[in-house]
């Protein structure tokens, strides 16, 4: 057993971090989000430098590089990247050996009849759809998604023309039956991975502020009651991080993924609440960068039935479906 990243993994992390230091970060996220734009340049750089295809390209002995891909997605989330990293780097390669044109967004088959806001929806070129028994890869034409106004940290959009999706035979490619379980697990895991990177950045930003913000003649971070709460956040974050990495390492098995997602997305709510509460009034203003990450935590909790969905999946994976 070894929880240390190996040399290759460290090199991948350092390399993607260098790219993100130059091409991502809170100021860039704020500017892009203000205009509900997608970071096409970062998306392209991630593709050109091979990070988007790391899942297959770093596979060893037929075992996909799920952990390495997760590390990259975690780093992108930490940097506040405005790219559909989870869908592109984790989910798409897990369900298809062929490259899928991005930006990619994901939805359930129900959402084809009743569209909901989707992260990066207005910019998507491809829709991967999760049904009960099938999954589909559907290329999107311009204008099929309309932007949705939101303050939850991601540009969003929803399907506007749903007629062509209503017949049982969907347009685009129908994936193999196995793809349903695979997609569910990697999608759920990708949410948890993004939550970990996002929580990490939110907590770091808050801790840095509380180390210098003084009230009552001392830094706020020096109050024991505040320290205990920040410690609790750090513990939840670290537990989430390792649950998530373990699930990625083992190829996104259902039970491990559901546990990781249930824990990480539950922790995301705690991290949102505590980082804002402990930052005080400035934490709710746009001039304080915390919102770049914190608001995203709440958006991540809304996908794929959020914490409740992960918990139900966990119970079913461990004990079987009710009545069976």
């Amino acid at each position, binding site marked *: 057993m070894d929880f240390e990243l190996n040399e290759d993994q460290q090199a991948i992390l350092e390399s993607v971090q260098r790219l993100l230091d130059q091409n991502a970060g809170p100021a860039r996220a704020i500017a892009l989000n203000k205009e509900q734009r997608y970071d096409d340049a970062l998306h392209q750089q991630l593709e050109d430098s091979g990070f988007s295809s790391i899942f297959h390209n770093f596979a060893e002995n037929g075992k996909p590089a799920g952990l390495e891909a997760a590390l990259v997605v975690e780093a992108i989330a930490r940097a506040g990247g405005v790219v559909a990293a989870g869908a592109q780097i984790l989910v798409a390669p897990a369900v298809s050996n062929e490259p899928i044109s991005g930006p990619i967004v994901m939805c359930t088959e129900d959402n084809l009849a009743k569209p*909901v*806001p*989707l992260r990066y929806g207005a910019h998507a070129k491809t829709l991967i759809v999760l049904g009960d028994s099938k999954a589909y890869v559907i290329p999107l034409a311009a204008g099929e998604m309309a932007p*949705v*106004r*939101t*303050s*939850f940290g991601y540009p*969003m959009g929803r399907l506007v023309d749903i007629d062509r999706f209503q017949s049982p035979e969907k347009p685009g490619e129908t994936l193999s039956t196995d793809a349903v379980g695979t997609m569910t697990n990697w999608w759920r895991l990708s949410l948890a991975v993004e939550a970990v990177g996002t929580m990490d950045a939110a907590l770091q930003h808050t801790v840095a502020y509380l180390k210098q913000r*003084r*009230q*009552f003649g001392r830094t706020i971070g020096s109050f024991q*009651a*505040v320290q205990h709460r920040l410690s609790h956040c750090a513990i939840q974050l670290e537990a989430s991080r390792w649950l998530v990495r373990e699930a990625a390492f083992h190829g996104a098995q259902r039970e491990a993924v559901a546990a990781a997602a249930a824990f990480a997305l539950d922790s995301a*709510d705690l991290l949102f*609440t505590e980082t*804002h*509460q402990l930052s*005080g*009034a*400035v934490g*709710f*203003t*746009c*001039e304080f960068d915390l*919102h770049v990450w*914190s*608001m995203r935590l*709440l*958006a991540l*909790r*809304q*996908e794929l*039935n*959020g*914490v*409740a969905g992960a918990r139900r999946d966990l119970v079913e994976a461990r004990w079987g479906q009710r009545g069976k």
Partner: protein
Amino acid sequence: MNTGFSAEELAFQSEVRAFLRDYRNVDGFYCQGHQWPQVRALFAAMAEKNWLALSWPREHGGLGKGPVFEYILWNEVAYARAARNPLAAGIVAHTIIRHGTPAQQQTWLPRIRSGEVHFSLCYSEPEAGSDLAALRLRADRSRAGSHYVLNGQKCWQSYAQDMDYLWVLARSGTQDSRGRGLSLFICDKQTLGITVSPLPTVDGDQLNEVFFDSVEIPLDQRIGEENGAWPIVGEALADERHIQFPPGRLRRDLEELVAWLNSHDLGNDPVVRHRMANLTAQVMEAEALGLKVLEAMVRGRNAAVDAAMNKVIHTVTCQDIARAVLDFGGPEALVSGCRPELIWRQSLTETIGGGTTEIMRSMVARQLLGLSA
């Protein structure tokens, strides 16, 4: 013990409810920043009934009613989502009644009572949030002694963009005088040297920064003694304890959530029902604590600890309901301006504004439990 209202109080509650029927769409409790003309009109209509001066002494033009009537009024207004209780008729007027000169009372009270003028509270500063006694905004007498000159900055002011006057706490003593060197001023927002700048907030709304650049304020716009504002500020907050966090808002939040769940066929989900049971109990708890604060006010007891407990329970419940709204609402709840998003958004700063949860808990620890600082 009797936790109910008297016949006269219940009759007043009915009158308020009937009055508010015409204002059910104002939505000023949640959206005052967007609905200010409508909220102002509501206050003007309330002023015609002299309800803005409901609890003021009769000799100052008030109706002389007690805290129970005030509680009923603002609790119903909160339940109707019509408005938050205005600063002018509350903190400002009560302070002027208690500490203003007869001339100040004559100048300001009729204008407040009629709903003509409205105030924004200017207390917090970049370096003085919870630690208010550290504030730095200077108020120095001019060389001739004819007026004060204010220099410095306030921040995180709610609704300052719409208000007519600012209720400003400033340092007139030395910087290390803490609470002993503060004075209160009324500043016309149009005075030369005052700049109000929006501070956009994460929810798409705004707070404000207020800059004072050599702002000249007449001596007769200082309320109370020079350097004597600290106890006055505490007193004024105490006046508002029973109406600052009306549980009617929570009751309405809860009812809206229940209606939404039923309209989406989620009312029978056992997980949902379990969570709603907890939230319902929390709302009832907040209602009970709200009444306990009121009872302390009626009896003239110090309600500080009761109010601190009430504020914690009220605001945490408010956020717990909002969290449930988001969780049940799914991705649709992320759309700006939709009702679930609005309920969530309005809960965000409740545990910060008006004294943070942490300050309230410290107060309970010290004053109720006797734990030393």
